Structure formats: structure tokens, C-alpha cells
């Protein structure tokens, strides 16, 4: 079924992770391992548990059962300073960018540097402007408010915020959702470049196969809260798994049935 990855040092390991909301079992025993420096993309349809899995790794949600090890340390039950210590290793690009409305762009990018690392504001502003340049945005954008930016620019600012503090692990939640194909490709390129520059481990979730093919070293498919296939990106087209084949070809017919009332 799932789980073992390559042969490098394991950065993130999930074992038997379960999470339910009331009677709905969203994660039903996730086993997944991500090697250091690897870019893993988790694909799957809407409501299959991708975002919940990501939030469990990030500590935003606490799993009901199972373990999540980051750099060999169990993290599911840690809180307070220990949690903040783990979070310092992470950078995250949210689906809707999740920029802070009340802060200008540069403060959004510098947020982790000012609050998390205690950098002074002037220094942090300079780093923010440099980081914005790395995602193709000029210094004139720095003083704008997030509401003044287009969707693509917001995503790029979100990416700049994620990489500004040089994290060990980068998470991308549906990085191309809501963008046109060209801007999607720009974001994909930026993700690949920045992850490579940082030498970071990357975990992305998406249902955009073009994006998955571009940014992944490995791909895992989640279905009904379980990893049903995992392999190198080059193996995705001959996985031999009917669920994966239906998903990557976007067919309505196949083992994955949508809950649609047909008349």
C-alpha cells in the first residue's frame, strides 16, 4: 500500500495517524515518510484528508491516534515553547495565501523574522525586500496592503513569507488553486527554485497534476484518509493503481465515485 520513501535521512515520519471530526473519519491511519531535501507532493480529491494531514504535521490539529516524528522527535503532543521551536523549522504557503490584512506586504514577509527571531524592524524590512525580489516582486510592492494585490501577487508574497526565515521544511497547500495556467507555472517555477536554493524538504498538497509533476520528487496519493500509492514522480504514469490512473487522467468513471445525485 504505502509508505516507505527513499534511502536518505528521514525528516518527517507519520505512523498510523488518525483524525476524526465527530463520526467522520478524515484520516484513517496515514503512514508516510519524507526524506530530508526531498519534495513530496500528496495528491487526492477534495475532502480526502490532504489539508487535515498537513495541519496535523504542522500541529494546528492534534491527531486522535498515531505518531508524527520530525527530525526523529515525536511532535503530536508537544505544546508551548517546544511547539514554537518545531514551528521555527517550518515555512508554509497557504491556499489563499493567508496574508495578514492589517499589515503591509513587507511586514507580512518579515513577520517570522520580527516575532519569531526577534530581528529589529529595519533589518527585517531589508530582508523582506530582498526576499520579495526572489519571488519577482519589486520594492514598490513592499508598502502595499495585501488587499491591493492580485491573487498571483498574494501567492508570491505568501511564498516570500514562507521562505524569509530560511526554514528546513516548506509546506505548500494547493499552491496553484485559483490562478491562471501561466501564473500557476510561475508559482511552480518559484517553488522549485526556492526549495532548491534553501535545500529544504518540501511537502505539498494539490489536485493540480501539472503542478505535482513540476514540483515533486515523489508523489503520494491519499484516498479516504489513507495513502493508497506512493512512488517517484516518473512512475506516476504507470503506477498500475486504478485509483491513481483515474485521478491523473481526470476520468469520471473508475473506482473513485463522487457523491453526486444523478437524475
Amino acid at each position, binding site marked *: 500500500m504505502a509508505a516507505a520513501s527513499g534511502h536518505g535521512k528521514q525528516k518527517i515520519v507519520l505512523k498510523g495517524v488518525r483524525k476524526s471530526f465527530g463520526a467522520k473519519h478524515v484520516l484513517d491511519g496515514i503512514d508516510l515518510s519524507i526524506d530530508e531535501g526531498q519534495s513530496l507532493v500528496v495528491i487526492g480529491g477534495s475532502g480526502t484528508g490532504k489539508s487535515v494531514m498537513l*495541519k496535523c504535521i*504542522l*500541529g*494546528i490539529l492534534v491527531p486522535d491516534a498515531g505518531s508524527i516524528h520530525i527530525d526523529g522527535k515525536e511532535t503530536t503532543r508537544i505544546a508551548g515553547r517546544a511547539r*514554537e521551536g518545531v*514551528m*521555527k523549522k*517550518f*515555512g*508554509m504557503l*497557504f*491556499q*489563499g495565501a*493567508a*496574508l*495578514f*490584512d492589517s499589515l503591509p506586504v513587507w511586514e507580512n514577509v518579515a*513577520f*517570522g523574522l520580527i*516575532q*519569531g527571531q526577534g530581528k529589529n524592524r529595519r533589518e527585517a524590512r531589508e530582508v523582506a525586500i530582498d526576499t520579495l525580489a526572489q519571488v519577482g516582486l519589486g520594492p514598490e510592492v513592499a508598502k502595499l496592503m495585501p488587499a491591493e494585490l492580485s491573487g498571483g501577487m498574494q501567492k508570491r508574497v505568501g511564498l516570500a*513569507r514562507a521562505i524569509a526565515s530560511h526554514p528546513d521544511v516548506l*509546506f505548500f497547500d494547493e499552491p496553484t488553486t485559483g490562478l491562471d495556467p501561466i501564473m500557476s507555472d510561475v508559482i511552480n517555477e518559484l517553488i522549485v527554485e526556492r526549495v532548491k536554493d534553501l535545500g529544504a524538504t518540501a511537502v505539498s498538497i494539490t489536485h493540480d497534476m501539472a503542478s505535482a509533476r513540476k514540483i515533486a520528487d515523489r508523489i503520494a496519493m491519499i484516498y479516504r484518509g489513507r495513502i493508497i500509492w506512493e512512488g517517484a514522480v516518473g512512475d506516476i504514469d504507470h503506477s498500475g493503481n486504478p485509483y491513481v490512473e483515474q485521478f491523473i487522467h481526470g476520468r469520471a468513471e473508475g473506482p473513485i465515485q463522487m457523491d453526486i445525485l444523478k437524475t
Partner: protein
Amino acid sequence: MQLNFLAIIGRFALGMLGEIGRFSRFAAKSVLSCVQAPFFLRNLLQQTMTIGYYSLPVVGLTAVFTGAVLALQIYIGGSRFNAESIVPTIVVLGITRELGPVLAGLMVAGRVSSAIAAELGTMRVTEQIDALTTLSTNPYKYLIVPRILAAVIVLPLLVLVADIIGVMGGFLVSTQSLGFNGGSYLKNTLDFMEADDVSSGLWKAAAFGFIIALMGCYHGFFSRGGAQGVGAATTYAVVSSAVLILASNYLLTSLVFS
């Protein structure tokens, strides 16, 4: 039929207990966060301006009209047994002990509790609160604590302003249309007012500030379901703050300040 009825009661009881538990946990975590570093002073100052300075017009207008109408009503009532001279005393006691803190509290609840719930609710549904967590920043310390501390500090100041403006409202009506002498009105006001009258109102205001910020933060922080959820959070925040202000006012007055 009977089983269904029992199931409904059971579900209601479980839901209510769950909500009480969640609220208690949130309140305890918020209060504990108020005394633990780090402190976000920039946010505290910003909230002090938002909650305090920008509430001045609405609190001032409420106070001046309340003081004015109080003077009119007491004059009408007092004149029935030739006790018109009691107007300054009743106005100052009424304003400082009850109407100042309660009406300022209710007005600020309407203005601030709803704004806090809407802001935090929007942050929740757009994942900005999750983003804070991923940036190694505790949302309780960054978002909740500055709002609670600002409201607790600022409400007594607003009530002090409301007390002064309310008394002046009564003074204006009494001297301009009820025929009172300005000097003797002020003398009566000061002679019969005690420090406890003012301080009890200020202590109550601090409690109301805590309630307003806590309810706004609680409903906003746990809102879900997009725009509709944020709208509902705003409504719950205002209604629960107003009800809790009135209930706690009675309890505080009867147990501590009576």
C-alpha cells in the same frame, strides 16, 4: 417518541456542556497568557486606540443625553413632593454608580465586541490564525491578550469620561431649562458624591471591559463557515457581552458594591 425527546435533551445537554468547557478553557488560557511573556506592546497600543479613543464619541453622546434626560425625569418626579433640589444628587449617583458604567459598557460592547469578533472571525476563516501559528507566534498572546488588556485598561477611563459628561448633561438641562443655579447645582453634586460612588463604577467598568473583549475574541476565534459564520459570531459576541454585562452588573453590585 419519548426516546426522541430524551435524545434531543441529551444532545442539547452535551452540546451545552461542551460549549461551557470550551469557553472555560479559552478564558483560562487567555488569562494565563496575559501574565506570560512575550508581550506585544505595539498591538496593545493599537488596541487601546481602537477600543478607547474611537469609542469616545459614542460614549460621550450616550452620557450627555442620559444625564440630560435623567435630570428631566428626576425633576418631574421630585416636583410631585417638592423635592426638586434632589436633582443634582440623584443625577451624579445614578450616573457614577450605574448608568455611566452600564451604558458605556453596552455601547462599547456593540461597537467593539462585534468588531473584534468580525476581525478574528475573518482571520480564522481565511487561515490567518493558522498562519500565525506556523510563524511561531502564539495567537493567544498576539491577538487575544492585547485586546483583553486594552479593554480592561480603557473601559474605566471611558466610564470616567462618561461620568463627567453625563453629569454635565444634567447640569446643562438643569441650569438652562429647569431654572437651577449653576453654582449651587455643582456644590450639591460634589457635596453628596463619595469616592466610592465613582470607584465602584470604575471597577465594574474594568470587569465589563474584560467581558466585552473576551466574548468578542471567543466568538471570533472559534467562528467557522465563511461569511455566514463570521456574521453569526458577531451577533453572538454582541448579545452575549450585553447579557453578561447586565448580569454581572447585578452580581457585582449586590455582592461587592452594595
